[in-house]
């Protein structure tokens, strides 16, 4: 087992934990953090697996860089929306459906 593969496996574990949180948590900020956790896991898999198979490779590094930028943008958007939603309704989760319909 190479260290690269270890990274990849750690990435898979992170994805799992993140997915768990994403599906089960209700608080919007926690879900957002869980999303970031999945993201980091995927990036680790992307780099680790590629380097494990093909040796040092600049391409995944460049990809992950782009991926991080995208993730930051998504996180920023989500934070803005969550904050505004909290201001308007006082809720921190989407669970209580019927109330905000009106």
């Amino acid at each position, binding site marked *: 087992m190479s260290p690269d593969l270890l990274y990849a496996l750690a990435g898979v574990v992170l994805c799992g934990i993140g997915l768990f949180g994403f599906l089960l948590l209700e608080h919007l900020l926690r879900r957002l953090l869980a999303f970031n956790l999945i993201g980091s896991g*995927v990036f680790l*898999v992307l780099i680790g697996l*590629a380097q494990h198979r093909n040796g040092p490779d600049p*391409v995944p590094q460049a990809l992950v860089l782009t*991926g991080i930028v*995208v993730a930051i*943008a998504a996180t920023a958007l*989500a934070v803005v929306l969550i904050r505004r939603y909290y201001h308007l309704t006082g809720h921190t989760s*989407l669970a209580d459906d019927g109330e905000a319909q009106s």
Partner: protein
Amino acid sequence: MNQWLMAGLLFTPLAWAALSLLLDFRQGRWLSWLGMLIQALVSLGLWVAVASNGGFYYALAGWEAPLGIALRVDGLAVTFVLLTAAVATACGLHAGVYLDPSKSWQRYFWPLFWFLWAGLNGVWLGADLFNLYVSLELISLSAVGLVALGGEAAALRAALRYLFAVLLGSLVYLLGVALLYGQFGTLSLTGIAAVVGADEPAAAMALLLMLAGLALKTALFPLHGWLPPAHGVAKSPVSALLSGLVVKASFYIAARLWLELGDRLGSHTLAQGIGALGAGAVIWGSWLAFRQPHLKQVVAYSSVAQIGYLFLLFPLTFAVAEPVSRLAQQGITLQVVSHALAKSAMFLAAGNLILSVRSKRVDALGGVSHYLPFSLFSFGLAGVSLMSLPPTGGFAAKWLLLQASLASGQWWWVVVLLLGGVLAAAYVFRIYRATFLEDRASDDFYHPPRSLEAIPMLLALLALGLGLVAEPVLSVLALPFEVAAEVAADVAVQP
């Protein structure tokens, strides 16, 4: 010539997005009118160029893959580019009149609109999996922004649900990309297709992940929960964009993946399973559409149902004869195009009807036909295409899919196709029926401006006419394309 067209196509939306960020809504509108004109002309020019000379590959700014961005410009891609130009221009023009410029947040409409357009073009033309991911994210984020534009709690709630769904979908897709890159060391779809073998469980797993992520983003049953609130609550032009184009982007990637890799990485069970989910979407979505009390919710659930048809592509192209597969691909392409036109027409018309009767409810429509609003006709015509009755594009699509199902002996999809048409008739005629009722107490009726009424009519007529000119449209898809050279180049890049 092609260089200039490509530059215009890709550069304009991004430049316009940046520029309009600096302007308020009214100034942005002027700017965007110019931009839409440029985009429409460039898209048309590119379509004509490809239709006469065939497809080509284009490396953005001369940087070759894998670090640069390679674009694949073929018949299917330019058809969708042109479709995007038509629908987005219509929605943009409509939004310019429909949205109230006095609200301060409306100024963000134009930047989001242009980012969305840029992302869509990126998806249609993208040739490698990672750039497709970036384009998808660009689409998703701007679409979420557009949904949230109203700023009310309901819109924010819908936008957040939408955001979480599409983010999860993107990451699952990206995980699949990571696995594929780890396996093959290339991101080019044709490159992977050239080297992939039949028995590769890791690659099959990757394909499954990518399809699952994309299915979530396309709102395939039973992952459709986020779509109706988002499409129903957004402003009408936004709903039209989302239903007409945005969901098609992720489906388009799924379809490309399947057509390139499905024959080796897919399985009979997977193909039939995805088809079954599509069938479930058709039936469940139609039923829910029939039950909705609000007009726009009916239209939104109808999108869930119509998206279901698209996934019949998977069983109808798996392990079937080449002509049958081609019939199915043509049918699905027509379904995408006709649904995009009809559904955006329907959303825009529904928005006008809601303005007219000042209520979102279906049963408030009683006696609307009395006032002979143009929008009702547009709505009706678009409905004919959704019911896939002749001579609309929806009918042409259904006919081809019927032929493909019959020719491949998969008669159960015939049942789904026919039943779907009947169910669509049920929810569309429910609306017609409501408009013919003559016991409306109040005569309170507002006539929307003519320009608002003309745009959905044009889109609906396009959906109608598509059925009559389906043959020339489809012939562009079947253009010859130099794949061999590109595959060779890609294989050479591999370490």
